[in-house]
């Protein structure tokens, strides 16, 4: 039966998939960002403030948090658009640490029902009670997470088949050649970053309301490194790649009791092995293409 523990693992997979997808979008445009956790965090805090302190409806708060994250991502990518490679990675890391350290100093509390509620620096932000106030069960919230994940996947699917998706992949392979093809990389890099920021934001806001308590240290660099690793393990050829990576890590490694406590060691080894033997993941571009051809032939017969 679906007990609450299993449901928590499943909903975790859904929420972390969103930040993994956001890192994936940047990976296919050829940029390695160590800073997607910043957008996840910005949206977690702002979305939770909106529902808890301001009493906004959930959906509007979800949009609000994600839009703030998208705007922050747009600003950062406009500032870093002329740098790439290692320098881009360092810049994104620096920004995300700025966000985390600012959250450590950020205090904004209000008295609600005789109790002080709101983010208070390192103590974190508890009492995000939207789930309890509205009597949402774990199962219902899990379904909500997956509804949003599926909507995001449909959007990414459409983009993958479109000119925009092709431009993303062109940028990821040869930015100079993309420019010679008459496309200005600056525009498309910013579009990719804003899209990635928004998707990370969706994940962050859902995360805050699922755990009812958030603190700045959740949004440290390990979250960003993981979200990168998910795409690299699962594969960069399709949007399902990062989902496979998340499912492998959270669904498989964390649930096996035998290796409990050794999960990070196994995961680290897995990343190293993948980078040596399958540098673009299990479902890389070539395998995805062959799979598609095989499926097409199979349906024709």
């Amino acid at each position, binding site marked *: 039966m679906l007990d609450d523990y299993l449901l928590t693992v499943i909903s975790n997979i859904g929420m972390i998939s969103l930040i993994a997808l956001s890192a994936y979008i940047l990976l296919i445009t050829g940029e390695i960002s160590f800073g997607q956790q910043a957008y996840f965090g910005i949206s977690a805090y702002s979305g939770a403030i909106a529902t808890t302190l301001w009493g906004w409806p959930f959906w509007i708060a979800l949009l609000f948090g994600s839009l703030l994250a998208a705007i922050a991502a747009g600003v950062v990518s406009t500032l870093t658009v002329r740098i790439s490679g290692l320098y881009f990675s360092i810049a994104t890391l620096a920004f995300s640490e700025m966000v985390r350290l600012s959250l450590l100093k950020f205090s904004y509390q209000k008295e609600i029902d005789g109790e002080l509620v709101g983010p208070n620096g390192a103590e974190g932000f508890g009492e995000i009670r939207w789930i309890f106030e509205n009597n949402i069960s774990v199962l219902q919230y899990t379904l909500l997470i997956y509804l949003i994940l599926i909507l995001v996947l449909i959007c990414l699917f459409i983009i993958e088949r*479109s000119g*925009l*998706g*092709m431009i993303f992949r062109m940028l990821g392979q040869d930015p100079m050649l993309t420019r010679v093809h008459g496309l200005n990389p600056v525009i498309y890099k910013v579009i990719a970053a804003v899209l990635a920021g928004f998707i990370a934001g969706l994940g962050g806001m859902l995360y805050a309301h699922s755990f009812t308590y958030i603190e700045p240290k959740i949004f440290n660099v390990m979250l960003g490194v993981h979200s990168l690793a998910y795409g690299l393990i699962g594969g960069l050829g399709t949007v399902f790649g990062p989902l496979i990576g998340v499912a492998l890590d959270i669904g498989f490694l964390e649930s096996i009791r035998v290796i409990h406590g050794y999960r990070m060691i196994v995961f680290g080894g897995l990343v190293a092995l993948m980078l040596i033997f399958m540098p673009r993941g299990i479902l890389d571009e070539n395998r995805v293409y062959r799979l598609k051809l095989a499926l097409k032939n199979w349906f024709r017969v």
Partner: protein
Amino acid sequence: MFELREICKSFGELRALHSVSLKIKSGLITGLIGPNGSGKTSLVNIMSGVYPIDSGQILLDGKDISGATSDQISRLGVFRTFQHIRIFERMTVIENVISAMISLEPFSLNELLGQVRKPDDPKVKVAQNMLEIMELEEEATLFASELPLPKRRRLEIARALARDPKVILLDEPAGGMTPKETESLANLILKHVAPGRTCLLIEHKMDLIAEVCEDLCVLHHGEKIAQGEPLVVFNQPEVIEAYLGKV
């Protein structure tokens, strides 16, 4: 007409091009030759906007385009190929050709988010045509990384043709090809690339130059030392000296 006026370009202490002026006549194939390191590829990089110039002027049909970036120049109808082949290796051959046509349409949401690989899409039709012309139709669904070198060079030209540029700059299109492959490339250039276009052809293979070029320009140490009809230019003492040294 593509015109360069007193172009200078240095990389630190190295003077790659010094006051090069060059007129590329419309509708002709102009050859560009010179010993290694004479600045041929630098010139193409400048004409396609990949490198900014230090001084001088670039004119396209009388319009000053000095300082334009490579995406702007590309949208003005100038396209190039690369001496060191650049293709999108993690895409199929036909996708490589389609990718060249994305920026041809005005920027619109429909253009950006519409499906690019629909079989009945005009872009796909054009891409198939170009692959047929370049005799690559059987390789259309292969990954570009699987192509051997001569086919990669032809893919670069197919891609350039798909954009249907006014001016096409070919940087050593026969590099690494056997004499037989070079011969068939010459035919393809004369039949499909040149008609109705302005071409600049960089080559080391003199028989190819002699066969297809109507005008020839020689660079040496970053300076232009000769321009004129190929057979006349070949016999100029400065040109012989640049290639073979002084007797």
